[in-house]
């Protein structure tokens, strides 16, 4: 069997659509080459190079032409508003993450140039993943990014980092299996791997007997795959262990960037099903979302370690946002990005605070790096640190006017607009449950006396100017959100209107 020869011109190829990814990959190769030429270069050079590459990448992304039908590279690339927006989020989050490598103490992983190269490859992977509606390219992007991420976690070089990495890898492999099987079924019923061709094909065959079985298989398997990636209940169990094993900034990064990418693909795939009036997909997603946010909240209540608490909290936040996928309205889609754009700064800030106080040895607890006791009486030791962490907690709890509140309000409003009042009340009550564990940390920081191990030396252990800069930025964005939410919503809505949802 031969593939039809295609008439290829440079116009059809539209190679500029590949520019952002090529910049990231090229940057990674440059870093590796520098290491070949001269060994033992200080990490700050790599950090700065990475930031520069990210800036160029961002410039290239912003410079792309985009539209609902802007295709490139044999029509497998799709540069629509969704793609541009999520690439911007990925790049900004990466730019916030990478300076956190510049701690005052030396940590193993950052002395290797491979760390930065892998990091850039991972970004390229995410960029591929979000700018395509071809299931194979999505898969390749997903795997490139995930494999790099597993390695990055393991490079933290501690016992539980290896455990985390292997656990994540195993779960990721399983998810990849589900994804391929789901895609295969879709290919089987539609004869295509492009979502924009799958949708009409399914629509035309909707009435056929047995079709629902195939759809159930396809959508079910894909949903399972993304439930793994988004750590939705009941596929969330890996997340707390992996977050705990990874370094704090990487855990914060994992709670945002891979999820944004997975949400983008979920939007493309599942909103297609919902647009096709396959109602049980919507029902299943709502059930998953409610279970995820509620159970993760309940689990977070009983955690003894702040990092594990934040891990469960970000699972719960993902459940909250998952509701928007089920709604599949323009407002809900805008809400997803508004939420993550605001959540990103706050959550990365909270994890950065953990990073500041990360000690080489576990001096507070035999099992945990960041038990609650570590923060007791923090306001007396480092008042600014406690206030900053307190702000992040209030923001995560959804206290106005801090950033995450606006995301919550917008998503709840979108839920009400779609007629799901009960669901909105569940979302509200979940925010109230969540307030308890965020308050718990505030209570430890502000209302308890410091324990003997809590001293300026241990809480400021890892601090450095770059860390403080990132923290300052995160605080600024968290507190000042009321002033920029309006243009942000406007921009996101405009991008959503330039998006192709496959119908």
């Amino acid at each position, binding site marked *: 069997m031969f593939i039809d020869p295609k008439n290829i011109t440079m116009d059809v190829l539209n190679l500029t659509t590949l520019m952002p990814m090529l910049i990231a990959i090229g940057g990674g190769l440059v870093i590796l080459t520098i290491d070949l030429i001269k060994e033992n270069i200080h990490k700050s050079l790599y950090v700065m190079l990475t930031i520069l590459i990210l800036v160029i990448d961002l410039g290239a992304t912003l410079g792309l032409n985009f539209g609902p039908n802007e295709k490139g590279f044999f029509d497998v690339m799709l540069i629509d508003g969704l793609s541009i927006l999520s690439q911007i989020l990925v790049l900004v989050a990466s730019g916030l993450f990478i300076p956190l490598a510049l701690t005052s103490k030396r940590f193993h992983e950052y002395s290797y140039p491979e760390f930065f190269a892998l990091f850039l490859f991972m970004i390229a992977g995410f960029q591929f993943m979000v700018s395509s509606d071809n299931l194979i390219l999505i898969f390749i992007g997903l795997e490139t990014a995930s494999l790099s991420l597993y390695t990055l976690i393991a490079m933290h070089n501690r016992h539980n980092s290896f455990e985390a990495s292997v656990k994540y890898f195993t779960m990721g492999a399983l998810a990849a299996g589900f994804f391929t099987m789901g895609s295969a079924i879709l290919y089987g019923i539609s004869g295509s791997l492009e979502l924009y061709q799958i949708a009409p094909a399914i629509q035309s065959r909707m009435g056929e007997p047995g079709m629902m079985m195939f759809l159930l298989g396809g959508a079910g398997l894909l949903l399972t795959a993304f439930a793994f990636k988004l750590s939705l209940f009941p596929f969330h169990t890996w997340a707390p262990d992996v977050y705990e094993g990874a370094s704090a900034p990487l855990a914060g990064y994992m709670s945002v960037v891979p999820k944004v990418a997975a949400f983008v693909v979920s939007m493309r795939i599942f909103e297609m099903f919902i647009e096709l009036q396959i109602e049980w997909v919507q029902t299943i997603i709502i059930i998953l979302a409610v279970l995820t946010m509620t159970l993760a909240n309940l689990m977070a209540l009983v955690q003894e370690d702040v990092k594990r608490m934040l891990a469960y909290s970000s699972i719960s936040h993902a459940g909250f946002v998952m509701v928007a996928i089920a709604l599949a309205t323009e407002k809900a889609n805008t809400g997803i990005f508004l939420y993550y754009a605001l959540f990103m700064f706050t959550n990365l800030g909270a994890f950065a605070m953990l990073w500041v106080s990360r000690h080489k040895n576990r001096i507070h607890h035999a099992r945990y790096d960041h038990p609650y006791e570590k923060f007791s009486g923090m306001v007396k030791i480092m008042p600014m640190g406690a206030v900053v962490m307190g702000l992040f907690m*209030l923001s995560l709890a*959804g206290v*106005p006017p801090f950033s995450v509140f606006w995301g919550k309000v917008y998503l*709840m409003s979108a839920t009400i607009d779609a007629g799901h009042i009960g669901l909105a009340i569940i979302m509200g009550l979940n925010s109230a449950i969540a307030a308890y564990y965020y*308050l718990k940390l505030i209570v430890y920081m*502000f209302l308890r006396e410091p324990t003997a191990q809590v001293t300026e030396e241990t809480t400021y252990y890892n601090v450095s100017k770059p860390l403080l800069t990132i923290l300052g930025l995160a605080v600024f964005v968290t507190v000042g959100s009321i002033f920029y939410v309006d243009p942000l919503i406007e921009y996101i809505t405009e991008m959503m209107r330039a998006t192709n949802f496959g119908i």
Partner: protein
Amino acid sequence: MDHILSILIFFPAIAGILGFVVDKDSAKAYGVSVAAVELLLALGLWASFDITNPGMQFTEFSPIISQFGISYNVGVDGISLFIVIMAALITLLGIVLLREDTKNMKNMIVSLLFLEMTMVGVFLSLDAIIFYLFWELSLVPMLYIVGAWGGPDRVYAAVKFFLYTFAGSLIMLVGLLAMAYLFHLESGVWTFNLLDWYTLKLTSNQQFWLFLAFFAGFAIKVPMFPFHTWLPWAHGQAPTIGSVILAAVLLKMGTYGFVRFSLPILPDASVTFTPFIMALSLIMVIYTAMVAFAQKDMKQVIAYSSVSHMGIIMIGVFAMNAEGLGGSIFLMLSHGIVSGALFMLVGVIYERTGTKIMEEFGGLAAVMPVYATIFGVMLMASVGLPLTIGFVGEFLVLLGFYKVSAVGTILAGTTIIIGSVYMLALFKKSFFGPLKHEKNLGLKDLDKRELTALLPLVAIVVWLGVYPKPILEPIDNSAKALLVQMENHSQLESTKEAIIVSKKEVK
């Protein structure tokens, strides 16, 4: 004075931020000066307020999130004007009463100033989201005040207070968002502007559910029976200043919410729910009064009596006539003054003896005559003795309620009797009879600091008890305007019948 409301809201917050820099020994002086300026600004607002105009004055409007209809929108009318002045006054006197040796004085002052911003903000907001913003934000400084300066179980009490209120307000938030959506359906415009919402006609079914959602937020704050369980905890553990502000101002947010949101936006549902609310309020009035009688702790008596009086305020709000509504707004003010003063007085004796248990005292009248006199005046005001501030509001509310239900009025009237019983019992146990402990002989009477904080309140109690007209008139105007607004806005005939207001009286 174009932006006086914004100045009123944000002046304490800016002062709070600058307060971080002030030296800790001057923190109290700084707090007193800022709060005094704030009070003067509030009085200035009263001076330039047009009392013949029942509508919103000094309004400011600027869009914040125009995509979503959220704007910074503030205004003041006769209902909110005096509550704001009362909040500023109580904050000032509360800070005056703070002891110089309070630990972490600077943090206390900064928290109080932020709290003042949120309180003023709640009462002046005309945009639902901005209202919600201040409403939620007020929890944070209160959490810190109770949690950091409170009694042995302070953390439990503070967290309980926070979570209880937070859960209720999130359901209210769902209601607010649903309301905005219904408005959007009707008009195609996104807005959270209350004055726009007042024009929206909703079906009975929509009003029913929205009322329940609002009720969840407001009733917990009031606190209505059976949602009141957080309050005795909070009062029991809070430091004096915390109890004073909680009882005087924060609880009024709940009743104010009913007046500002539930009644005018949902008139039909308000009337439908009236029997339910009345029943709860009557239970609240009588039951908590009895509980108050059973207490041994002086502060708990006052805490429960405060809940009992909030029940009278709720009855007045839902009497749906000018006497009841105007009276309950007046009662909000008088309750703020009186309960604030009573908590201050309990704080005074607690600082001296380290106990609040009434049986430990006895015979204090001989040792501390000035203290006993002021306590007596406040107690009489709390019971509602004529010629004190407590009488005016209580009488008007009962008068208004009489037009609705005579039996109910008799039941509600028992509050005056039971109130006198437990208050006089408190007074007798603590101030008369033999001294229980020798060491109480050496107690000092009120000093200058305490007199400065308490005497203005005594003056107000007597002045407004004798001559309430200057503040009753603007309140009455706005209350009537609100009822007329309600009547015009309602769609059911039964609602129009329930609302008793003569239109001619409204200027």
